[in-house]
């Protein structure tokens, strides 16, 4: 007998028998397939237990927690400056966009308003974080569906934005640049002009992606009608960002709520798509990237001069109270519910991340889907694992 001991063999057979007899007339035996936690298509360590009947999914359920770092517990023992350094590691691709909601919530509690120049630069870096995040998605969706080249174009042109963020904040991915009351520093000389060239590069990558992927009939065959989410179900699960807008929900926090970012002074358009399938999600994100580059161009031209830091005491003690501020992050609506008891560190910070809600729809969405479509749907929902597991 081979080295396999009898106990293992029995366990192996028992495992097989445990798979429910899924398809009675065809006498087929169900198979439980573990996609992840080590899998190229899951943006990190996410594990999906899919019960298959042949290639069709009978029931799929994501298992998370491999990347859970316990942010909400950490925030209880850190000062506000330390938390800012921590939270730009939640959605590690949209670097600056994580810090803004937390700082805005703290500013609302303290009743401080950042000077106009700081708001302008904050919005510019916020949109740059969005572009850096979504351009990675535009390339990555190609890999999920099998095309190798778009990824390289995306990374080549994304470098320009990361260089701009690094030139201002010092860090490409983790800027840690936002402070309560304004920003840590001001723009270096010649930055505004380099940013204009970077924005032109962003529009160029959007056109390339439209030619290589969006137009290709195979991409349309793989994504049209795959993973359709009706608007009401999307809202019930709390989907936000491009996933909601792709189902026809005309809702964008940048336009609908006023949190102190000058989106009012810029004319831009919210893109929606009626279909709600994977193709629509890709299409909406592509248009939003182009829109973001136009927003940044307009903001760069109208930067007011002035200080970047309001008058703020050196030791920051946030007065007692609660505040919830949510902004339109690249992945969706990210909100910080900050409860403060008036001392150096917050009493409780609830971090509402977009990917958690975006992924909570997958058990409902992945029923009766083919195996390759699991990957397409997960790719189109576009989550970042740090955002999902916090």
């Amino acid at each position, binding site marked *: 007998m081979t080295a396999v001991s009898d106990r293992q063999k029995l366990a192996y057979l028992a495992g097989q028998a445990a798979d429910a007899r899924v398809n009675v007339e065809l006498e087929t035996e169900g198979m439980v397939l573990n996609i992840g936690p080590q899998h190229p298509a899951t943006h990190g360590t996410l594990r999906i237990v899919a019960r298959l009947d042949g290639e069709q999914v009978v029931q799929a359920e994501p298992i998370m927690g491999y990347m859970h770092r316990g942010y909400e517990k950490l925030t209880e023992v850190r000062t506000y400056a330390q938390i800012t350094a921590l939270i730009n590691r939640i959605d590690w691709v949209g670097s600056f966009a994580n810090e803004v909601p937390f700082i805005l919530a703290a500013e609302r509690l303290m009743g401080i308003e950042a000077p106009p120049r700081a708001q302008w630069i904050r919005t510019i870096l916020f949109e740059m974080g969005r572009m850096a995040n979504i351009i990675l998605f535009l390339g990555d969706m190609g890999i999920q569906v099998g095309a190798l080249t778009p990824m390289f174009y995306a990374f080549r042109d994304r470098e320009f934005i990361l260089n701009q963020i690094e030139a201002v904040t010092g860090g490409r991915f983790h800027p840690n640049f936002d402070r309560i009351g304004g920003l840590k520093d001001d723009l270096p000389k010649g930055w505004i002009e380099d940013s204009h060239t970077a924005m032109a590069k962003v529009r160029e990558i959007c056109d390339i992606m439209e030619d290589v992927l969006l137009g290709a009939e195979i991409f349309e065959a793989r994504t049209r009608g795959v993973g359709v989410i009706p608007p009401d179900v999307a809202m019930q699960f709390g989907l936000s960002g491009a996933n909601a807008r792709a189902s026809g929900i005309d809702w964008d926090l940048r336009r609908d709520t006023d949190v102190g970012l000058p989106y009012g002074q810029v004319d831009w358009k919210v893109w929606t798509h009626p279909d709600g399938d994977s193709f629509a999600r890709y299409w909406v994100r592509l248009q939003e990237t182009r829109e973001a580059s136009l927003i940044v161009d307009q903001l760069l031209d109208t930067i007011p001069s002035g200080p970047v830091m309001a008058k703020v005491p050196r030791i920051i003690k946030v007065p007692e109270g609660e505040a919830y501020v949510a902004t339109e992050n690249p992945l969706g609506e990210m909100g910080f519910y900050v409860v403060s008891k008036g001392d150096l560190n917050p009493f409780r910070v609830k971090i509402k991340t977009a990917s958690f809600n975006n992924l909570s729809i997958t058990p409902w969405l992945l029923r009766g889907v083919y195996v*390759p*479509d699991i990957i397409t749907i997960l790719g189109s929902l576009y989550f970042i694992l740090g955002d999902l597991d916090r």
Partner: protein
Amino acid sequence: MTPLLALDPAYWQVTTLKGILALVVVPTTAAIIAFVFLFKFVSFMHNRLGPMEAGPHGSLQLLAEAGRFLQKEDLAPEQADKRIFRWAPIVVMVATFLIYVVIPAGPNAVIEDLPGGIYYVLAIASLSVLGILMAGWASANKYALLGALRAAGQLIAYELPMVLAVLGVVIQAGTINMQGIVAAQMGDGAEIFGLPIIGNPYILTQFVGMLIFITAIQAELSQTPFDMPVAESEIVGGYMVEYTGTRFLLFFLAEFSSAFAFAAIAATLFLGGWALPHAWGIPYGAMHVLGPFVLLAKTMAFALIIFWVRFTFPRLREDQLQKFAWKVLIPVALANIMLTAVLKVVF
């Protein structure tokens, strides 16, 4: 065959010579294709340089790769069926070697000029499916199982359009012998639209057949628009997932040498293989030397199309792939055969 050189070797010497020749030619062709297309051309398409460290401009990268695979430990999963697991890559490799038997690279530079040349190739092409199924089933891994079943479904579904596309060429050439097909295209009487200068490459008359053949090759090699058996983002390497070391090297070599083999067959069927149009008046003797280079150039042309498509397009789902094969390729191939037969009779 007029004796090439003065000496007249015994039969067994000829076969061993041919065996050694095949053992040398197949890996080098796979190496050429792998280096030119997989390392360099793809990198240029991605606006990057590809391997640059090993050898001038990365030329010795393949030696480094082979060395890396050879010194890796040769693992087999515990619950795998050891014997079948070890023989699977060898079956796939043999299937690729056998295709080279029939490809003519010169007037008599062919390992065995079988009378049923192209018919033999189509039969052998389906042998690799066995190796893949053995690999997938024996490695006791759910991903490998999925990959193998997909490969089986796909390769069988795409053999039919390949056969039908080849039929168009055979009807027009009137023979199924490879040298015969080459002669029909580039022989003395061959000319098209009245100008003999370009001979009669079947790419012009059999253009639809060529397209179907290229698509079928893409599926036989499980390349990207049809690479479900090895879909990296879904089933992570398909049937090759449990292989390491030399066995994986065998699969790698098999993949690229079969790419060269099929591209060479496409060149022979549609671009006239090793021959140049008779009207150019190149002496028959010179073709012995020139033949292989002409075949290499034409094969590179077809391989360019294969790899260009491979690195640009996304991947189809298997049900779309099957629908595309049965509902689109086969009817068009049948229509192509009918048209060729009618035109053959009329002219």
